[in-house]
């Protein structure tokens, strides 16, 4: 039997398929989000890689920003529960999840059973989200994925102190104009985003094991910064971008079994 989880984000789509024994058969991600053919693309790719067809799927759960408008699922569950589920499966003993997505940053607290106990999300402001790093990458004229490598070359600590992305943008531009090294600015951006999200984490209370998910977790420099901010080691979930989709697939199995 096959169970499909689809995570439809604002700027990317992810899918995961598992069997009835919770074996992970495939996880795929594409940088195309809701309102496009992104979800269909990742589902087709996932099916193809497993070598099955759509009608062989026993149950489908959709999650993420686009879950409500996605009509092909049997059930929709929020990304908060799905991230919790996925992490509990991948990292036994996890109690705190930090997820930085494109539009949202969230911190989730799991109880001893691996269920979601509490969660917090960033408010309107973009300063603590992936969007902030995108803005920084744009100013630094590099790709989002290059930020991590760039930041590692940083030799001098600079502070991007502003709470507001728009403010921070002008601050960074003036820093660059004054000859501050790009690498230092990249590291400054990492510090800035992590300090915002660390604030959220402190509000909910941090208990180890701490796990990071989401695309930003692939940025090693951000993860190291976050560890420094919160004072705990961080485990990056394997293939962090697709943890939500995996959680959705696990929910699909669970729901199917209950029926």
């Amino acid at each position, binding site marked *: 039997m096959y169970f499909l989880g689809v995570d439809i984000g604002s700027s990317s789509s992810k899918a995961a398929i598992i069997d009835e024994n919770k074996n992970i058969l495939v996880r795929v991600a594409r940088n195309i989000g809701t309102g496009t053919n992104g979800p269909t693309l990742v589902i087709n790719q996932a099916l193809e890689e497993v070598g099955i067809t759509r009608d062989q799927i026993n149950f489908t759960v959709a999650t993420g*920003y686009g879950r409500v408008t996605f009509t092909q699922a049997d059930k929709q569950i*929020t990304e908060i529960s799905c991230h919790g589920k996925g992490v509990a499966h991948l990292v036994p003993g996890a109690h705190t999840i930090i997820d930085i997505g494109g*539009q949202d940053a969230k911190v989730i607290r799991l109880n001893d059973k691996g269920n979601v106990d509490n969660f*917090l*999300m960033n408010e*309107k402001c973009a300063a603590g989200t992936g969007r902030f790093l995108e803005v920084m990458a744009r100013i630094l004229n590099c790709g989002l994925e290059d930020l991590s490598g760039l930041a590692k070359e940083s030799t001098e600590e600079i502070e991007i102190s502003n709470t507001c992305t728009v403010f921070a943008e002008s601050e960074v531009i003036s820093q660059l104009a004054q000859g501050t090294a790009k690498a230092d600015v990249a590291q400054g951006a990492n510090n800035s985003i992590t300090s915002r999200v660390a604030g959220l984490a402190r509000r909910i209370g941090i208990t180890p094991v701490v796990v990071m998910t989401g695309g930003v977790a692939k940025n090693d420099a951000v993860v190291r910064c976050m560890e420094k901010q919160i004072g705990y080691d961080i485990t990056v979930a394997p293939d962090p971008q697709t943890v939500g989709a995996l959680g959705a697939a696990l929910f699909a199995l669970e729901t199917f079994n209950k029926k």
Partner: protein
Amino acid sequence: MADIKSLIAEFEKVALNPAKSAAELKKETGKKLIGMFPYHLPEEIVYAAGMLPVGMWGGQTEIKLSNKYLQSFCCSMIKANFEMGMNKTYQKVLDGVVMAAYCDTLKCICEDWKVAVTDMPLIAMYYPQNRKIAAAIDYMGAEFKKAQEQLEAIAGKKVTEADLEAAWEVYEAYRAESRKFVKLVAKMPKTLNATVRHLVIKAAWFMDKKVYTEKLAALNAAIEAAPAEEFNGKKVLVEGIMVEPIALLDAFVENDVCIIGDDLSHQSRMFRIEGRKEGTVYEKMAYRIADAYADPLLLDEKKEHGKELIDMVKEYGADGVVVCAMKFCDPEEYDYPIFKEELEAANIPVLYMEIEQQMESVGQYKTRIQAFAETLA
């Protein structure tokens, strides 16, 4: 049931179109309307003067003109009021406005209003924070007297003690009936869903309180007579100044989350204090302020906001508390960390959401409400 539905429909019609409802109220009654800014104000005196108080709790309006006076970090509800004073929405129906400085923002708004909105009488008041001592009761009496004189000038009529007594009775009846209604929600959580509950209570701000009370009493009686509804969703208390836009309330309904009780300035905080029986009307009005509890706008030496929420959770059998924090509202923002710790210590789940009245999309809020319901499962 038909009875219940049609009664609800009447309230909904009033509450969904405040501007239109106020205009009709004015036309039908021939009475002058006085706008009441948020929080406790002497509505009884307005009523005694033969005029009708109308609620001013912000609304959906495009914020343009008020930026001339206010920075971006100003409470959206108060800013909307200010905007609608500047863009003359209120002038179409109101004959005067009453406001009192319950927070730093309101102090300033009142001053700015004097400059920006000159074509409507303004009654500026202050309610004491050291509210339990005898000097505060006297002070309120003096403030009421001043307000009464200004209201009499608008009404063109003197207010007698008998007028005040009658108005007091109308308001006590309204408050008692409202207290009854919020308790009855538990019996019909589906029919009286989050949105319906909100609209029924909100309608009071745009009706003659006497007429409203009669209709609400009819609704309450119909609910009492009807069979209880089975409900498998989650039950929550909401805390905050008010919960709007309507789309946000709909997000509760969509996720089968019932608002079983509220600790909102716009709702229960207005009517949960029963008046004392002795004293003049001024004194009875003043004692309602002195006797108020766990109200973020009124100083509370014991700070019992958390205790009150915990008590309410027990009383209403709620599964959790949803904090709808009006962004940039100091009084609310100071209370939250304290009661949050108390609720957590009592193992009560809390969802915290910062809201603004003019929100373009409630997508993220839907996710949070749904996720909260999932965690309560």
